């Protein structure tokens, strides 16, 4: 079964590469795909099917009792879940949007002729390499309402800093900003690759026609860097929707439930030992990501054809 799936997708690829020829047999014998099929089946297919089953049970790790869709009903009754879903969407949209805009602007800056370009590129990318949990704890200390370096600095210039991660209406935004700081380097690198691959002829032609710098950016760079934009938006949106580590390290979903996202709600169900319920939550999270990302990629791909 699994072997069949692997084989047919390989066939499709081969056909795609050699259009015009009649259906070509794979040059490899069927058993050649077996190792990959076994690994795929054992590590991906089996757990997926098993998780669908366990999401329908009351599971203590020691025994599982079939309870139908009760877990899904319970998960949607979870009082914090609605806020978790809203927070997830806010978080995904905020981080994805900021990473795209700031990443593009930084990429334009860092592909221009500026001093210390190499050093600046390194500095922008550096946070990507640092451990997320470490960043989380560091910022948690820096955002401490009275002793944190941010509020101490603000106080020195006469501003009464807010409780960055202790104020319930600010906590999620604070975490999102740290996430943007940490992740914008990756977006910048993708945009830089996109900008560098735009042929210089377009800029020259536009300049001869008298385009301003703003017009060059808006009419040449932005449209032609589109494939990079699609990559950045899709990757950061998927990342943002299922994000967990930084939120957990900085606020634990708190204060109370105010920065809970779907992933942290699920994690808390695991912690409490509600394994079936948590598995059902993961199935729901999978569904939500698919619902958001599939139409988005479809829309992007369609626009690409239009261009």
């Amino acid at each position, binding site marked *: 079964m699994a072997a069949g799936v692997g084989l047919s997708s390989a066939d499709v690829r081969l056909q795609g590469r050699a259009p015009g020829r009649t259906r070509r047999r794979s040059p490899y014998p069927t058993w050649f795909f077996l190792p990959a099929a076994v690994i795929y089946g054992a590590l991906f297919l089996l757990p997926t099917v098993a998780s669908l089953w366990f999401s329908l049970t009351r599971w203590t790790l*020691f025994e599982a009792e079939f309870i139908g869709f009760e877990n899904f009903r319970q998960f949607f009754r979870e009082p914090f879940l609605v806020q978790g879903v809203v927070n997830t969407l806010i978080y995904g949209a905020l981080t994805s949007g900021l990473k795209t805009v700031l990443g593009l602007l930084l990429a334009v800056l860092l592909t221009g002729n500026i001093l210390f370009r190499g050093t600046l590129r390194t500095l922008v990318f550096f946070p990507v390499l640092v451990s997320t949990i470490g960043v989380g704890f560091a910022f948690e200390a820096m955002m401490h309402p*009275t002793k944190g370096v941010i509020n101490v600095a603000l106080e020195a210039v006469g501003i009464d800093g807010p409780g960055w991660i202790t104020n*319930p209406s600010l906590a999620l935004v604070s975490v999102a900003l740290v996430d943007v700081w940490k992740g914008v380097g990756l977006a910048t690198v993708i945009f830089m690759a996109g900008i560098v691959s735009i042929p210089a002829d377009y800029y020259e032609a536009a300049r001869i026609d008298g385009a301003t710098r703003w017009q060059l950016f808006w009419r040449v760079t932005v449209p032609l860097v589109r494939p990079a934009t699609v990559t950045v938006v899709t990757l950061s949106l998927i990342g943002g929707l299922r994000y967990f580590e930084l939120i957990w390290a900085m606020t634990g979903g708190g204060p*109370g*439930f105010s920065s809970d996202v779907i992933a942290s709600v699920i994690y*808390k169900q695991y912690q409490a030992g509600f394994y079936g319920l948590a598995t059902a939550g993961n199935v729901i999270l999978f569904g939500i990501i698919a619902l958001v990302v599939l139409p988005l990629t479809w829309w992007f791909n369609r626009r690409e054809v239009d261009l």
Partner: protein
Amino acid sequence: MTRMIPSAALAAALSTLASGAFAQEASLVYLVDNSPDTVAVAEALAAAYMEQHPEVSIEVEQRPGGAEGDNIIKTRLATGEMADVFLYNAGSLFQALNPTQTLEPLDDLPAMTGVLDGFKPVVTGSDGKVYGVPAQAAMGGGILYNIPIYEELGLSVPTTWEEFAANNEKIKAAGRVPVAQTYGETWTSQLFMLADYFNVQAEVPDFAERYTANQAKYADTPAAMRGFEHLQEGFDKGWWNEDFGAATYDDGLRMVAEGEAAHYPMLTFSIGAIQQTYPESLENVGFFAQPGPEGAPNGLTVWYLSAIYVPKGGEHTDIAKDFVNFAGSPEACQVILDTIGATGPFLIEGCELPADVPRAVADMLPYFEGEGRTAPALEFLSPIKGPALEQITVEVGSGIRSAAEAAALYDQDVVKQAQQLGLEGW
């Protein structure tokens, strides 16, 4: 007292006998939570045992506390990766481990005869067997207070909530912080609510029973809801320290020990931590039970917090049991006293407290001596404790949610726990 001595002597004799039987080389792992005093005691116990049994080596492994730790314990038990011996909560959290299937019964240990009968129910499985040996002294949940502030302002220890509130207003008027709250570690936010249980059961004696049977709720029992109301009152009246949202447990201990705050609602095991971290301030910290309403009896909510267990299917089960036997002996009490000092009355017969206990412990002992002045916390009377309580109490203490809404939300939260345990009537 004379009655206890023979049983202690018997236990000691048996353990000497037993030690001969295990003259084989083995290395054990003892898993404990990472609070400094727990680790210090675990290492001292392991060292004392190894001294008597040079062929055995015991390594102390640390894990996080709170919900993170619950997860580690459950997962390691379920996957057969548990350490040879481990320390974990008694009461409702113990019940959630499915003890009859995962743990070794310890009824036959010689030390078990010396374990106080009052403790055994909180480590007894549904099959009536006992699975744990007490890991520490009994503790109370109540309010630590800074004695110099009380003396300076001429306050007296409150026995009713009204007196407590009046004290707080005077402390606030004097420009001091009345109550330390430390929501940087969310579990610390539950104390006002959980330590109020003595007062709940004084007013509604059958609450635990009816609560377990899904007949009583926090939202419709005024006595039970009072714990949430106390938290809301504290926030509304501005009793908290400025950084309550980010402060940690250790900050709370420092505040009450060094006089930055007048009160810190906490369990008395923290006296051990104060002794370790702020020894010069130890005698400045006193303790009183959480005060109840006017005219009600004044008593202490007691925690039988943790016990030592042996998982089923370990490689060195016999040696592990022998170590647990040692940990439940009067000898082990002495090791605990030498390491972190006295934090409360011991749960093992033959263990006596020295005359010069810390002030806060001395404040706690009279509750244990009087009849009907202590009651176990609800989590030791009922297997139900909702996992989101610490977030809910943070919300009430931070002014995000009202006490009434919080009680209703908590009632909803415990349903999952009751269903997961397969209790009747849910």
